[in-house]
């Protein structure tokens, strides 16, 4: 039930159909009682009078896959989760589109919620991914996470 390592990165936005499919495909599992989902979406942040139009994500893929395997193992060791899916965009994602999708399932709600929250925090903090915020006048700035 654990997904393959090389499924993490999606070129461009995470399609709504992928999100719907991942949620729907767990319905057949009779030992699951809770799903927790996090979605990150591109926001039109205002910076000095200019508005973010898109973010272009670049990734150190080798290091990222290695780090993701480490995070995945830690989550499975710490939470009784049945399933865990993580997708992150690579390349260009426009305002309003989804760039980050985390999905966890478990028998009882606390494991799914705790695992999802920890995945979101660790991925944002530990994954070698960089976002370049693009403005309408073709200037850009590099995103910094809070």
């Amino acid at each position, binding site marked *: 039930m654990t997904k393959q390592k090389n499924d993490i990165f999606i070129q461009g936005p995470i399609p709504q159909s992928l999100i719907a499919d991942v949620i729907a495909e767990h319905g057949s599992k009779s030992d699951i009682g809770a799903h927790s989902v996090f979605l990150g979406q591109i926001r039109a942040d205002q910076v000095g009078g200019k508005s973010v139009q898109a973010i272009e994500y670049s990734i*150190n893929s080798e*290091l990222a896959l290695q780090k993701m395997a480490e995070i995945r193992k830690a989550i499975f060791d710490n939470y009784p989760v049945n399933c865990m899916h993580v997708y992150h965009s690579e390349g260009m994602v426009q305002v309003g589109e989804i760039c980050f999708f985390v999905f966890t399932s478990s028998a009882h709600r606390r494991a799914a919620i705790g695992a999802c929250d920890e995945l979101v925090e660790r991925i944002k903090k530990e994954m070698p991914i*960089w*976002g370049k915020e693009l403005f309408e006048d073709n200037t850009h700035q*590099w995103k910094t996470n809070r």
Partner: protein
Amino acid sequence: MRIQVKTFGALTEILEREFYVTAGDTAELLTALSRQHPELSHRKLLVAVNNTIINTPVDLRDNDVVALMPPYSGG
């Protein structure tokens, strides 16, 4: 030692994305790059050697790959 350097994020606007240099250890490499590109010296950098993050200088061998990375900003 002939080392491959890969750069990421905002660093790609200062350095090439991939290039080869000669350096005996990571401290020597970073000192040389900062001398050529002074804007590097006040930047926070993460360094990985062959996909392992290092926090203190390590010796380099032929064909090692050094990744130079700004703080992450995914998600």
